[in-house]
């Protein structure tokens, strides 16, 4: 069972590494932000699996923090960059 | 190869990358980020050593140092950002220039 968990974690990490390509290319700021969302969600999945693998339930608190941070970044981007209209990012 | 060895080697690499970034990059924001990456390298050494010296639990003193260190690094980064933005507002320059 533990070996399977490690495979899942490695798979999810490679998934993140693949998705980071979009930060590099993404034409707009919003595209780049998407990838931090991806990192947030996938990171939470990794933390959940790690919590089962290490049998350490406190990792779930870290997962909630990841979630908080994702929503903070989105609202930050949307509100801070709001007035900048018609300019190419 | 143990877990802490991998991370302590990584920390040395991160520190050197950050140092190179401080020298090479021109824009203020990049310089600030480079110093934060350097700091991340230092914190990684501390925590990997705490993992090595673990008995029933990992050494708590480096953990506490790193937590306070992160908060202080963030406060100083905020100050640096404020300075950089002020310089930009007053002079329109985004980086240090020699020709003055």
């Amino acid at each position: 069972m533990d070996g399977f968990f490690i495979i899942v974690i490695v798979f999810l990490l490679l998934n993140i590494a693949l998705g980071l390509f979009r930060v590099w290319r993404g034409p707009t700021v919003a595209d780049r932000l998407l990838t931090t969302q991806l990192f947030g969600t996938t990171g939470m999945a990794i933390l959940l699996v790690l919590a089962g693998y290490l049998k350490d339930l406190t990792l779930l608190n870290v997962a909630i923090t990841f979630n908080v941070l994702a929503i903070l970044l989105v609202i930050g981007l949307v509100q801070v960059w709001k007035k900048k209209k018609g300019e190419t990012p | 190869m143990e877990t802490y060895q991998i991370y302590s080697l990584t920390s040395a690499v991160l520190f050197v990358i950050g140092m190179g970034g401080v020298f090479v990059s021109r824009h203020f924001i990049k310089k600030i980020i480079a110093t934060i990456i350097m700091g991340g390298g230092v914190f990684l050494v501390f925590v990997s050593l705490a993992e090595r010296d673990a008995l029933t639990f990992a050494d708590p003193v480096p953990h506490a140092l790193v937590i306070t260190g992160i908060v202080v690094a963030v406060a100083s980064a905020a100050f640096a950002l404020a300075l950089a933005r002020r310089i930009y507002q007053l002079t329109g320059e985004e980086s240090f220039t020699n020709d003055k």
Partner: protein
Amino acid sequence: MSIMIDIILAVLAIYLALQCLFAPRLTQTVFLFFAFGLALALAWVRLGAVDVAITEAAIASGFLGVLFLDALRDFSLAPPLKWDNLEVVHSSLATKNPKSLFLPRLALMLGLGLFLLIALEAVWKIPEGGGLTAAAEALLPESGVEHPVTAVLLNFRAYDTWLELGVILLGLLATFAVGGIKIYRKPPVVADDILLRQVILFFTPVLFLFGAFLLYFGKSGPGGAFQAAVLWGAIGILLHLGGRPVFSMIPRWLGQLSLTVGLGFFLILGFFLLAGGATLFEYPPAYAGVLILIIETLAAISIAAALTAIFANLNQMNKEESNQIESTN
């Protein structure tokens, strides 16, 4: 087998750091930096430092992330004035002979390479047998809490934590000194979107409760003042972004009180302990648990207020927005 995870994480962190610093565009740099922070948070988890992971994820990626987004917008707007000055700079850069940069670059690369080798060797050969784990473990029953990191932060090395509150307050004062005190002004951006307002209203109590949980949980597990402070600070930032700047809604004395209460209570407590014949921050073991909880709560309020104020102040540094406020008033 589980070493695979560590290797991939380490490679990911190094790759992200490199890409972050050598990306051609500034937005790439900033967003790759967020990803770097999250990768580092996963690394802390792998090293068993769950407290550090929470702090890193929330502060170094969330709080700094919002600050950087704000700054990025400022820098990507057209520069305010002095175009001729800027052109001089650009032309001087263009005329610089590329050959003259070759030697310094070579020297820099050589120096960095040598330094890397030395650092790797130094890290590899750090002598065994140090560490304060045994000392911390022996004194843990007297500290009033069960979690060793909290015991170190708020009892054994309370001095550090106290001074750190001072450092954060100094950082806030320094940003005031640079940008001018404007946080008591009216908000620049009001949330005109009903969903945005509702989600902020929903997340405010959730964040508050989760922060309080972490604060109390810090007694027996990963959590404590800093983690709670970051979550409460996130509430302040969210409310500010949603057009409800906390510091202009509460009376001024309350804002000042919340900024200084952590530092002040520490100071008064230390004074009374000294007057009672103990050393600074030597809590009587019977009351240590209660005292630590009170200190943690007050420190968390102070740090959260300071983070909110730093963000509010930096957010209103933007020239265009402040001009707009003046024109609408």
